[in-house]
């Protein structure tokens, strides 16, 4: 069927499109190579260049190979699109400029994907396939994941140099990317589950990379379990869809109800039972809530900051959290039909509501964070809310485009944060304590941060503007006015909290480590919590001690200790900070000792860190111009968006409107003004609160009761963690465990003890009667019988030939006699 369509439409294909499965296989091979031989490889010096050992090169090389393959795939896909002659025109209307041939088929300008499918196994009449499904969406995400992963791996070469689990880190990082690529490539739901779960496992390993600290392993467990809650929805949803769509898919030549095209065609066909598709969509969306950190399961994402910064960067930009958004975009017809998106007269649906709530609550939380990575984490949650809301209001292309642009600037921001902690703030992520005034010390990092922040806030002409504004604009255009306002408010809040973070980090007076005062001075400032860990260090140089929290209010927050190293190795001592410090000392002592002998105080990071930063910053600015509606550039829409056809909903058709809003500067004006307002307000408030002068706003959250309550409410993250851990988990777990204990003590123990007593008694009886009498009797009896028979027969064996002869002939005579008697 596919081939026939290809031929009819004259679509070009190519080697990269046909062999796209290699993109996911290469990191898999890299992973096994790192595990198998990674630890045995030492650093190799080639002239002044050092090739790092530990197997990290396999990781970098496999990701680079994946990137090349993904780039080839993207190039050939674009050729394929061009060969179909499909363009969307400035107004983005479908059907206006499509080729006659396609119009005759009634297919819109839908470019058929390149599908390669192999049978994995068969069971119960169902065929489970594994394969690749390349279309615009998977092409762009593949390219994105491979690109970001490559940069993050290069960055990690420096960031994790000398780490004790360096090899394992790279193995997990490579498999992580491989899992995402497997999922993106999938042509069926089973493969999506496979990739999804690989990512879940790897995120657990990577977040808990420094598991010696109890808080880190807690964060890893929390991430794993929270996502697992959603994963139940994935299994249920896939099952519902399979059993509902299977007969349709099989009848129409799609293999089985797992096939993505089959599912999409089924959802579009109008024959689907609305109940089935509704509950399938809801169940799958629950999985996406867990994976993509949507309200109310977003709580794991900020805690996932416990992992090394490159992990946060990868996890938050392109790999883990995008998976949920990708799944919605991938089988969008199911959600579109099931949740009645874009149906005339509907103003709310599940996806848009969850996305909208997530935007606001996460942005609000970002205001009270003192940890730079947590600000970025909540910002990610909020941006994921934008993507979901975009999908919820039918703005498919802007939502996918936002995945694309967001990956670059968010990855860049995280890597900037890592760069600051690596070289600027002495492994601290505390903005209030250890940062400030870094813009002069770290100019490259500062520049990259500013570009990415501008992109995140949606400052005009930066990439975020072109994607986020499109989402907001489309919400308005499609009649979802509530979500339009939420999007605008979110834009305002985004700018405000990013201004705050920028001010605290790069402006003002240097504080703590940023001022060059680490270790002793820092330790003295926290005398009550200072913990001498000399002894621990003697045993374990990287010892990290968990420490009690100062307030019980946030006892559930990961309280991590920071162990520090001083220049002189012999003089190592650590001080433990009982605040929300995130970072554990991880790098090789000797390395840092040497480094700190040379550089005292903050300085710019080395090239392995700044080069990825600059590349990402350039893209954070430039990636928006693939789909700059303001300049009538629609490349991204042409390449990625599969409009119309059997496999994709004709968005906006029901209301007779265009699929996507036409760009007008007037429509963009509110968000631009709000961004400016957010910047102005936040800058003013920041300067007055955090600045040097004694301003009236200083300590305002402590003085005015409603503000204090609000602050406390936000600081405790809406008490969601308390709700989950104290109320839901305890509420479920305690009665269950109490009941289980009672059952154990009374019923099970009774059964066990009773059975034991009965068994003992019957054993004794059996011993006495069966064993002693029957068995032993038989054995002894047979022995005695054999002995008696032997002694009876012994005389016969006389050794005398004559006797033998006599016996022989008498036996013969007896036999003859018998013969005669019988015969007569």
């Amino acid at each position, binding site marked *: 069927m596919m081939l026939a369509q290809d031929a009819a439409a004259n679509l070009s294909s190519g080697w990269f499109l046909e062999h796209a499965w290699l993109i996911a296989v290469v990191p898999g091979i890299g992973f096994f190579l790192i595990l198998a031989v990674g630890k045995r490889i030492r650093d190799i010096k080639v002239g002044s260049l050092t090739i790092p050992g530990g197997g990290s090169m396999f990781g970098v090389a496999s990701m680079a190979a994946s990137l090349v393959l993904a780039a080839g795939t993207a190039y050939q896909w674009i050729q394929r699109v061009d060969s179909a002659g499909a363009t969307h025109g400035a107004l983005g209307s479908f059907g206006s400029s499509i080729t006659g041939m396609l119009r005759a088929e009634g297919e819109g300008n839908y470019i058929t994907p390149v599908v390669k499918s192999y049978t994995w196994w068969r069971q119960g009449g169902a065929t489970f396939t594994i394969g690749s499904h390349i279309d615009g969406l998977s092409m762009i995400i593949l390219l994105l994941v491979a690109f970001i992963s490559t940069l993050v791996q290069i960055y990690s070469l420096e960031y994790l140099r000398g780490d004790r689990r360096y090899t394992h880190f790279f193995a997990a990082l490579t498999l992580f990317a491989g899992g995402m690529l497997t999922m993106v490539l999938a042509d069926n739901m089973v493969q999506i589950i496979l990739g999804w779960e690989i990512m879940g496992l790897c995120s657990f390993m990577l977040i808990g990379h420094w598991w010696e600290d109890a808080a880190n392993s807690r964060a890893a467990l929390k991430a794993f379990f929270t996502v697992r809650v959603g994963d139940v929805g994935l299994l249920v949803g896939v099952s519902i869809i399979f059993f509902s769509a299977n007969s349709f898919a099989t009848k129409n030549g799609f293999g089985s109800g797992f096939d993505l095209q089959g599912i999409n065609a089924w959802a579009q066909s109008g024959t689907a039972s609305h109940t089935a598709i509704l509950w399938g969509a809801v169940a799958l969306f629950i999985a996406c809530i867990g994976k993509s950190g949507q309200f109310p399961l977003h709580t794991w994402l900020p805690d996932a900051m416990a992992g090394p910064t490159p992990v946060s960067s990868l996890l938050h930009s392109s790999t883990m959290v995008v998976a949920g958004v990708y799944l919605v975009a991938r089988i969008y017809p199911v959600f579109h039909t099931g949740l009645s998106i874009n149906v005339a007269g509907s103003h709310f649906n599940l996806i848009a509501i969850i996305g909208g709530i997530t935007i606001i609550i996460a942005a609000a939380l970002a205001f009270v964070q003192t940890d730079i990575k947590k600000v970025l984490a909540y910002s990610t949650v909020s941006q994921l809310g934008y993507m979901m809301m975009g999908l919820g209001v039918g703005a498919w292309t802007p939502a996918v485009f936002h995945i694309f642009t967001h990956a670059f600037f968010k990855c860049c921001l995280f890597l900037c944060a890592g760069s600051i902690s690596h070289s600027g703030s002495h492994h601290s992520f505390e903005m209030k304590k250890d940062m400030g005034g870094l813009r002069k010390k770290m100019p490259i990092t500062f520049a990259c941060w500013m570009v990415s922040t501008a992109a995140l806030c949606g400052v005009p002409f930066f990439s975020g503007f072109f994607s986020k504004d499109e989402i907001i604009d489309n919400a308005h255009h499609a009649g979802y006015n509530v979500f339009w306002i939420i999007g605008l408010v979110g834009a305002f809040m985004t700018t405000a909290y990013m201004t705050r973070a920028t001010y605290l980090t790069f402006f003002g007076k240097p504080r703590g480590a940023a001022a060059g005062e680490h270790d002793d001075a820092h330790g003295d400032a926290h005398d009550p919590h200072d913990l001498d860990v000399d002894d621990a260090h003697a045993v374990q140089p990287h010892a990290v001690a968990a420490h009690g929290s100062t307030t019980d209010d946030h006892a559930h927050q990961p309280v991590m200790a920071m162990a520090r190293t001083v220049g002189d190795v012999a003089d190592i001592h650590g001080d433990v900070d009982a605040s929300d410090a995130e970072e554990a000392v991880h790098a090789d002592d000797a390395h840092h000792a040497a480094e700190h002998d040379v550089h005292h105080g903050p300085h710019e990071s080395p090239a392995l860190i700044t080069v990825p930063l600059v590349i990402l910053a350039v893209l954070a600015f430039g990636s928006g111009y693939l789909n700059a509606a303001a300049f009538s550039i629609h490349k991204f829409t042409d390449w990625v968006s599969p409009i119309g056809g059997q496999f994709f909903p004709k968005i906006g058709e029901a209301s007779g409107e265009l699929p996507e809003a036409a760009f007008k500067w007037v429509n963009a004006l509110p968000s631009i003004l709000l961004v400016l307002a957010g910047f102005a307000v936040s800058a003013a408030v920041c300067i007055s609160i955090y600045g040097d002068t004694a301003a009236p706003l200083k300590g305002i959250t402590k003085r005015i009761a409603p503000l204090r309550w609000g602050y406390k409410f936000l600081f405790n993250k809406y008490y969601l963690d308390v709700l989950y851990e104290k109320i839901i988990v305890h509420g479920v777990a305690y009665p269950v465990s109490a009941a289980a204990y009672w059952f154990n003590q009374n019923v099970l123990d009774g059964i066990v003890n009773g059975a034991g007593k009965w068994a003992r008694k019957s054993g004794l009886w059996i011993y006495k009667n069966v064993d002693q009498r029957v068995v032993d009797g038989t054995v002894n009896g047979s022995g005695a019988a054999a002995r008696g028979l032997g002694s009876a027969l012994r005389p*016969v*064996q*006389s*050794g*005398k*030939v*004559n006797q033998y*002869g006599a016996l022989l002939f008498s036996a013969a005579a007896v036999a003859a006699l018998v013969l005669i008697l019988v015969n007569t």
Partner: protein
Amino acid sequence: MLISEFLLLGAVLFCIGVYGVIVRKNAVLVLMSIELILNSVNINLLAFSLKYNDISGQTFALYIIAVAAAEVGVGLALVLLIYRNKRNISLDELSEMKG
């Protein structure tokens, strides 16, 4: 032609052979007795061969003579070896196989 004379001769020879095997202590004499038993069987075969005018009885008799010759050869060789070891061929002395 009366067949019973032949059968009587065979029976007498058989009885003499059995008597010799059981009573004689000399190994050579025991071997000779065995020959008598075999030849008594031969006589029986020949008698019935004549009676039923069937050549197969005489053929079997020829086989038995050949086998008996071989058997006597083996038997005499054993006796010779026993004599070499023990300087004696009395069967009373040969009770090593007593159980």
